[in-house]
């Protein structure tokens, strides 16, 4: 057998099995947050209450469309869906329009979204630090935007 080095097999499965959506209708993973939805629409994709949209990804529904800063996507029937008089917004249809990759586990009701490409453009094109929010070991939130006026080195490492 190969020499074990930085092996923590006991940490692979240290938790008791439990349901992810025991008290919710769906779970979203985005930007390091775990967001629980109390309701979702039926059918393909992830249909959310439009009121939840802004708190999930910062997009707002406006007369000109669904918008984030200067980016607006016109609203159409693929994005806004009415079921039994209730309006739903398709988060997955928006992701597809924006080229935002995601992975879904339908059985568990979890959608994990990668970053929206338009939100990364300022880094990819202009080399500006990404809009990143981290929580340190003391529980303090560290935002890249709060570092302005100082030089910062952000360095990754690992125990392995």
């Amino acid at each position, binding site marked *: 057998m190969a020499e074990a080095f930085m092996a923590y*097999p006991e940490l*692979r499965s240290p938790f008791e099995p439990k349901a*992810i959506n025991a008290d919710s209708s769906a779970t979203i993973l985005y930007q390091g947050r775990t967001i629980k939805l109390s309701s979702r629409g039926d059918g393909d994709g992830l249909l959310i209450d439009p009121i939840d949209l802004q708190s999930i990804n910062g997009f707002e529904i406006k007369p000109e469309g669904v918008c984030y800063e200067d980016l607006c996507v016109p609203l159409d029937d693929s994005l806004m869906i009415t079921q039994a008089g209730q309006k739903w917004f398709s988060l997955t249809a928006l992701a597809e329009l924006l080229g935002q*990759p995601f992975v879904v586990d339908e059985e568990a009701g979890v959608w*994990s979204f990668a*970053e929206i490409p338009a939100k990364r453009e300022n880094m990819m094109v202009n*080399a500006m630090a990404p809009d990143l929010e981290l929580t340190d070991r003391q529980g303090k939130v560290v935002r890249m935007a709060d570092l302005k006026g100082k030089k910062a080195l952000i360095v990754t*490492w690992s125990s*392995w």
Partner: protein
Amino acid sequence: MPVWQRIYEEINDPDFVLICVAEDVGGEAVAGPIFDAANPTYIQVIDEDHLVSSAFNFVNVPSAAWIDESGRIVRIDEGTYSMIHTFGEGEEAIAFGNDVYEPALKDWIAKGGDSAHVQTAKTVSSHIRQHSSDQQKADAAFRLGNLFRLHGQNDKADEYWQMARDLNPDSVNFIRQNLTLTEEGSAGEQFRTMMGEYVSSGKDYYRPLDIENV
């Protein structure tokens, strides 16, 4: 991590922020004691979901970004070492790391935009890895695997961690993190095989370091 505490103390500049980020699914249990042993006064983050690597398109540790006062990245994605490390002896000795990164960093902190090590936005942009849609999807799959682990659903965790590795085979982070949670560990036969293939295919897990001695 003691090395970063030393560097941080030597720089001793109130306008310099050092953020050390542990990319570790094992969380506080594995990364916490390593941080604590360094008695750190810099910002310490334990990043179980590897969000920082994802945000900067890093594929290995240690990697870093230098960010100036305006929020612009002025260097990125280089093996972030302070010395040359050697393991083993004779012909089997393996050396990695470098001894030019630390002086270059200190030069930048002292001189700011006048440092020869500051790169233009155009250069930095060209140094940021271009990740495909599948590679970005791999980040989402990895986090989904972590969520299933936290809920004790280990088969699902394995399924999505493997998906992440398949979607982004360039990520040394994903394969080593995954192997860390096995009996074989992060530097066993699977790892050596994978790294042999990785290097022989001409891939770099850090950008080539182009720092002259300072």
